[in-house]
């Protein structure tokens, strides 16, 4: 049986890879995908704690953690829809999705 630390390590590894992608990739859509990866990695942590930190009364998994995952997934879906609409609007205005060309907001 895999232990809690193994799950947390895999989750942290996925989060770190996503973070590296956000930093290094120049294509804004791929940056967005890496953000989704980081959200999912955090979900794995929540589910792992829900399974290992069982409800003391019943001994079943603590479903509060999985409720959190449910809400994270819902918000992520809304975020993807809005984010991609912004990217399309941006592409229409600037004809680019390379983050290096989008420096208007840089101070």
């Amino acid at each position: 049986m895999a232990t809690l630390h193994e799950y947390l390590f895999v989750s942290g590894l996925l989060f770190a890879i996503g973070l590296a992608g956000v930093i290094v990739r120049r294509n804004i859509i791929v940056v967005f995908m890496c953000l989704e990866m980081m959200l999912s990695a955090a979900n794995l942590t929540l589910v792992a704690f829900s399974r290992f930190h069982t409800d003391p009364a019943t001994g079943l998994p603590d479903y509060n953690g999985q409720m959190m995952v449910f809400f994270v997934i819902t918000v992520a879906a809304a975020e993807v829809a809005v984010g991609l609409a912004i990217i399309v609007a941006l592409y229409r205005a600037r004809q680019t999705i390379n983050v290096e060309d989008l420096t208007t907001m840089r101070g």
Partner: protein
Amino acid sequence: MHSLAFYLFSAIAVAGAVCLVTFRSPVTSAMSMVVSFLGLAALFVGLNAFFVGVIQVLVYAGAIMVLFIFIIMLLDLNSEERSKTCPALLVASLLIPALFMCQLLGVLQSTENESPKALPLTTAAAHFELDGKETKISQSLKGGDLPDVHLLGEKLFTRYNFPLQVVGVLLLVATIGVVSLSKKGSDRTAKPADQ
């Protein structure tokens, strides 16, 4: 979850994530993201979170991936990225996650490790009986199944009823926002190009 399955699926998830970051073509990146999310869904199922695993496949590997592919095709972005990557960024992208992993390992070393306890399904059944009568949850528990969806649904519509409705409003606002953002011919999106 059996250890072998855990290692297999976590390897799939991590390999998918690495491919997502390293491949240059956005379509390949999107496909490796799907592989990674399927691995993650299998890990969720291994943690007895069947509902979350199914939702992960349906929402992430299904809906969100299709949305990404759709936008990539729509904008015709199949061209490769420019090959030059700023070396400072490359160093930062290795250093910051490495620092994060070091911190995580430090935390894991200083905390107690736990092995999963077997779920006491039949003894937990008594907690879900209503006035001594059997409910669907207690029946499944007595039968040796974990009624994951029923348990989650019970929580969702009792304790988390208000957040659920707030999330409903959020989805509505997001829908309206997306429609108004992608309306064609609005001056707001066209103007900055001319300036």
